[in-house]
């Protein structure tokens, strides 16, 4: 064709005039879109691979060496993410209706707790031997053998399908862990950065893969560091999938790749190990021999606690008991000192100069004066119970009986209550007065808590997804109850919060509360029609000089008064979502019923939103909507839109009473409906938070329109073509609301 054809020249001129070349830059958006496309394609390929794998394994079997080699080749232990930088996952304060929001959920549903916690301790404090674990699981347990000098087994724990063996090394704070799980081909490969080098290594008869590096959180992104001191080795052998990981905190790991491969190649059957006490601990007989007198042991100890040896110092003795999950903070320590001289309880300020201790007298049977001194906060653990200086406690009970002074140093009240410590004390005095008393610090339903106070307790009908009622604590003397809620294993946002409820004088205002140190940031806030306030407690490692890098905001309190009752929701939550969650929970509070439930039928999401929500039950293919979410602070409702069969977000539909201000010139406008003359405007979006959705659009578009007195905004980060945006908008705008 003639280069000088006038029509060609005309087209070039008008095209440049309408869409100047200098304003066209789709490199980043195309890259992002094709990455997403590849991820979806990878999922499909994985499904195909799995099918192929099943056929091969059924044909050849894994028991043969030949089968093992094929298996390890088919299996992908690591997969490149295709990038070294990932955006931090957006926290999702997704509130959902609770069917039984006020009854304690079994503790095994808590996040990060191994199923064998009662027998073998938590992941932070594993106490079983591999031999003990072998008795609990059906697959063969192996342990590292021929350990180099300085490497010792710390303990093992886990569950029926996955166990971990933890080892200490010669390097302080180094973490060596062997994970074992029956091999299932559904186990996903570990994602690594594009800069990672995945090395194929020979582990005995099997082929494995080794990677050095780790994803490290920065302020807004997660970055893959290939030079991070994390080494991971994965392989499959005899139907068991293994991962050996070494995390070192300084620049000189005690083991290198060859060392790890050597260790992995020498797994062996668990060796029988005698019961051992921690270093420096004595048996009862040894302690009595050293003291030259008999030790008084408690007649009973709290459920799950186990004898963990004794320590002796200057004629005093301390009896140690390990907590059910092995966590050091859960431990019990009972100091016995001959004589009944006066006792003072110090405050442990090694962790915080602001630490304190509150004390009260509590009745105890069989003690002098019939009372003991109970303290909570940061008691200083006596030297006899703290020979290495590492023992911490949060409660203490001091009493004197039979010419002996006892100090029981206990864990936080959430683990062992005041009444449980009193029962332990009375098992030492031999005079039980607290046998069948209800424990006001360990109430398992809100209905039970109601019995301790004379005003109607409120419980939330909305909680963050995956959260549960944990327990309640009542203080009958103050006529107050605190409800505890915690994140479960499938929670989208982790943390915990409490709801404190107590009557207040009618003339007391919200802001007349004590101001602790550090001083919080206080913001006025409406909770429904009530005036409330939101307090944010932050501290800084830089003292008064707070910066983004050194500030740590760890607690938030939402407080308001209603019908003569003061409500405080106190939380430890990610700061970006705390206010949203607290407000939503506050608005959903309703009276508890006698059976511990409440009437959620009167409190559905759309009533909380204050207007009918758009029905997105049948979106045009290939789109489907996620669950409804109400953003209480902006009175907006959000629906996330997915492409069918994909988990990644394609866009968001936001419904609100107030339209977003047009902060930029529209790109185009459209008629959505010929009958109603609904006009939609298409705006460019650049680095914008999507209100009420917990999401953010870097570069994309917003299609906005008004219908039925409500504002609608359909956001898309270039994942939904304009044509589809219009189809979706037409679907929403032509459906009756509230269906």
């Amino acid at each position: 064709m003639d280069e000088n054809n006038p029509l060609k020249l005309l087209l070039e001129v008008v095209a440049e005039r309408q869409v100047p070349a200098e304003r066209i830059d789709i490199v980043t958006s195309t890259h992002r879109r094709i990455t997403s496309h590849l991820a979806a394609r990878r999922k499909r390929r994985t499904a195909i691979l799995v099918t192929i794998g099943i056929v091969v394994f059924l044909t050849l079997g894994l028991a043969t060496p030949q089968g093992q080699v094929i298996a390890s080749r088919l299996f992908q232990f690591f997969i490149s993410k295709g990038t070294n930088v990932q955006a931090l996952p957006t926290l999702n304060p997704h509130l959902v209706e609770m069917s039984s929001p006020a009854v304690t959920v079994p503790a095994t549903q808590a996040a990060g707790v191994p199923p064998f916690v009662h027998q073998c301790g938590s992941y932070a404090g594993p106490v079983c031997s591999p031999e003990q674990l072998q008795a609990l699981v059906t697959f063969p347990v192996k342990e590292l053998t021929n350990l180099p000098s300085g490497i010792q087994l710390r303990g093992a724990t886990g569950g029926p399908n996955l166990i971990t063996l933890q080892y200490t090394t010669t390097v302080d704070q180094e973490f060596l862990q062997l994970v074992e799980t029956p091999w299932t081909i559904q186990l996903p490969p570990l994602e690594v950065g594009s800069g990672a080098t995945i090395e194929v290594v020979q582990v005995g008869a099997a082929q494995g893969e080794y990677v050095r590096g780790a994803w490290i959180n920065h302020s807004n992104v997660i970055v893959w560091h290939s030079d991070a001191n994390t080494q991971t080795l994965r392989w499959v052998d005899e139907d068991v999938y293994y991962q050996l990981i070494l995390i070192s905190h300084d620049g000189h790991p005690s083991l290198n790749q060859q060392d790890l491969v050597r260790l992995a190649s020498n797994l062996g059957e668990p060796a029988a190990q005698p019961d051992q006490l921690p270093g420096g601990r004595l048996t009862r007989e040894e302690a009595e021999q050293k003291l030259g007198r008999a030790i008084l042991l408690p007649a009973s100890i709290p459920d799950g606690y186990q004898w963990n040896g004794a320590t002796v110092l200057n004629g005093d003795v301390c009896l140690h008991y390990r907590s059910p999950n092995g966590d050091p903070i859960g431990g019990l320590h009972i100091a016995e000192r001959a004589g009944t001289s006066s006792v003072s309880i110090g405050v442990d300020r090694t962790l915080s100069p602001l630490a304190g201790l509150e004390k009260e007298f509590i009745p105890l049977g069989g003690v002098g004066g019939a009372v003991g001194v109970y303290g909570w906060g940061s008691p200083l653990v006596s030297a006899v119970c703290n020979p290495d200086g590492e023992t911490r406690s949060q409660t203490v009970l001091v009493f004197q009986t039979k010419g002996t002074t006892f100090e029981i140093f206990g864990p936080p009240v959430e683990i062992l209550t005041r009444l449980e410590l009193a029962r332990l004390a009375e098992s030492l005095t031999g005079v039980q007065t607290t046998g069948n008393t209800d424990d006001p610090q360990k109430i398992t339903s809100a209905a039970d808590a109601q019995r301790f106070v004379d005003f109607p307790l409120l419980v939330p009908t909305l909680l963050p997804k995956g959260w549960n009622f944990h327990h309640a604590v009542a203080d009958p003397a103050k006529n107050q109850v605190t409800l505890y809620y915690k994140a479960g294993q499938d929670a989208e946002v982790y943390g915990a919060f409490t709801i404190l409820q107590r009557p207040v004088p009618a003339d007391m205002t919200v802001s007349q509360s004590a101001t602790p140190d550090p001083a919080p940031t206080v913001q006025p806030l409406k909770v429904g029609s009530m005036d409330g306030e939101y307090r944010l407690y932050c501290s800084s490692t830089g003292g008064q000089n707070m910066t983004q890098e050194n500030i740590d905001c760890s607690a938030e309190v939402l407080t308001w008064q209603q019908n003569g009752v003061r409500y405080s929701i106190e939380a430890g939550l990610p700061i970006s979502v705390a206010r949203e969650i607290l407000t939503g929970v506050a608005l959903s509070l309703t009276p508890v019923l006698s059976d511990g439930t409440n009437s959620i039928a009167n409190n559905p999401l759309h009533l909380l939103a204050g207007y009918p929500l758009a029905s997105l039950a049948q979106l045009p293919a290939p789109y489907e909507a996620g669950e409804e979410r109400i953003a209480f602070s902006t009175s907006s409702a959000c629906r996330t839109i997915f492409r069918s069969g994909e988990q990644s977000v394609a866009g968001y539909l936001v419904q609100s009473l107030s339209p977003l201000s047009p902060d930029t010139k529209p790109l185009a406008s459209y008629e959505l409906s010929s009958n109603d003359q609904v006009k939609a405007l298409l705006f460019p979006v650049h680095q914008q938070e999507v209100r009420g959705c917990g999401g953010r659009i870097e570069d994309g578009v917003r299609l906005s329109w008004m219908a039925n007195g409500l504002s609608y905004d359909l956001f898309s980060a270039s994942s939904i073509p304009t044509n589809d945006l219009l189809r979706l908008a037409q679907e929403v705008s032509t459906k009756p609301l509230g269906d």
Partner: protein
Amino acid sequence: MDINTEKPHIIADKREGMEERIAIARLKKGDLSGLDELVKRYQVKAVQSAYLITLDRSLAEDIVQESFIHAFDKLSQFDDSRPFGPWFYRSVANLALKAMRHQHKFVPIDPVNNECQEAILARWIERPAGVEAVLENKEAQQEIWQAICRLPVDQRAVIVMRYYQGLNEHEMIVETGRPASTIKWWLHEARTQLRRWLGVDSYGPGNKRL
């Protein structure tokens, strides 16, 4: 021939061709940096041609991104010895045409886009001018644009494919799946309309035949 003895623009063309082949080779191996190179190279003409067909910039960018995904998926079928551009532009035009067929129920009423008004076109027709004058005159360019956007989408698409992207009739037939007679008719109608609206149907001084 020694490359150093060639004319500068030939050397530049050869270098660009080599860079393009390297980018495609990288992309075939799954290295997305190859994609970035291709997007940088072809995004302007691709977006502009999609825009000429759709009259919607956002949709045009969507279409070009989708075209790159299509190209990526079909890269194994691409003949490395041939230039990437024409192969890719055909896909852009075809996707744009398909998008417009699906979008027929939505009527653009954007102030920029709905200026295809009879009055402006009529004024052009009443005051014919040469192509060179049009190229130098912004008001004239605006009026040319009105004429183009007034064309039915099928006719506008074939005009863009033929004259802006430089496809021959056979390539247009393959890409659109339409019979030759239809393509020829659309081209004929589009050219006739433009000539009439723009007043360049005559063969007076300064005018070239469209």
